[in-house]
């Protein structure tokens, strides 16, 4: 049972949160102008990195606010949380897992 630091309510148990998948995937400006393939990528395709991942979370059992987090999908460790209007993290921050894969 991890603690997730809601930017407003502070650390709460992970069951209070709803996972929202990859962050920074904006709704396309003009869906009608996209090819089927481009649209499919918006609808169905999300990154799935092993390592640091910028993702969306919602404090669903608390203040119900969405926020973003950088979490390492190998260690599950939250590197930091940030608000939706904060800038997208840089490539270097996401580049590596802090810790390479754990033993099976």
């Amino acid at each position: 049972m991890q603690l997730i630091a809601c930017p407003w309510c502070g650390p709460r148990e992970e069951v209070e949160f709803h996972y929202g998948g990859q962050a920074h995937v904006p709704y396309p400006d003009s869906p009608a102008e996209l090819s089927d393939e481009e649209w499919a990528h918006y609808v169905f395709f999300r990154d799935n990195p092993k390592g640091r991942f910028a993702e969306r979370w919602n404090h669903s059992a608390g203040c119900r606010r969405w926020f973003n987090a950088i979490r390492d999908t190998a260690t599950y460790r939250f590197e930091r949380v940030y608000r939706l209007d904060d800038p997208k993290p840089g490539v270097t921050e996401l580049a590596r897992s802090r810790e390479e894969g754990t033993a099976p």
Partner: protein
Amino acid sequence: MAELLRTSPLDAWTDALERLPDTVRIAVEPYVAMVDVRLGTVGAAASAALGVDLPTAPGTWVPAGTGRAVWLGPDEWLLSSTTETPEELEARVRAAVLPLGGSATDVSAQRIGLRLTGARVRDVLAKGCSIDLHPRVFGRGSSAQTTLGQAGVVLLALFDAADDVVVLVRSSFAGYLADWLLDAALEFTTTPTHDR
């Protein structure tokens, strides 16, 4: 005012709640008007319009007139009043916040309040609430939206000793939560009085 009879979702629990020991007293709070307020920026204008300084620190509540103002989110509060009707409260608050880009919604019946008092209150809540209710952390004026058992709740600390807490719960979950609390309090009763 109204001749229509009011009923509470916990009417059927009255006897069971009354049988609880002094270390865990549970009282159903009287119906009050409650309004959900949404407002982007809080400041002098809002305070003047509403007649209350809405708390801006997450996880807090303050007395507001005859009622309370509870922080629910960075732009959301629960405002209650014991003297106004739900319609009056909504109308007054809505008129106050509309010019400021806010909104207000009557939610008086959305939740029901249970007031828990006694030395064992913390022990009872700890059976289903994952946040730290130690008085150092959750003293008077603290509030929390969290989960108690499997019900979403708003907790309000009324006194510093953490032995006086209001639990606001969605009305449709009230029966579940009452059952849950009675069950949690069972070990503190000398004569089990579990069945309602």
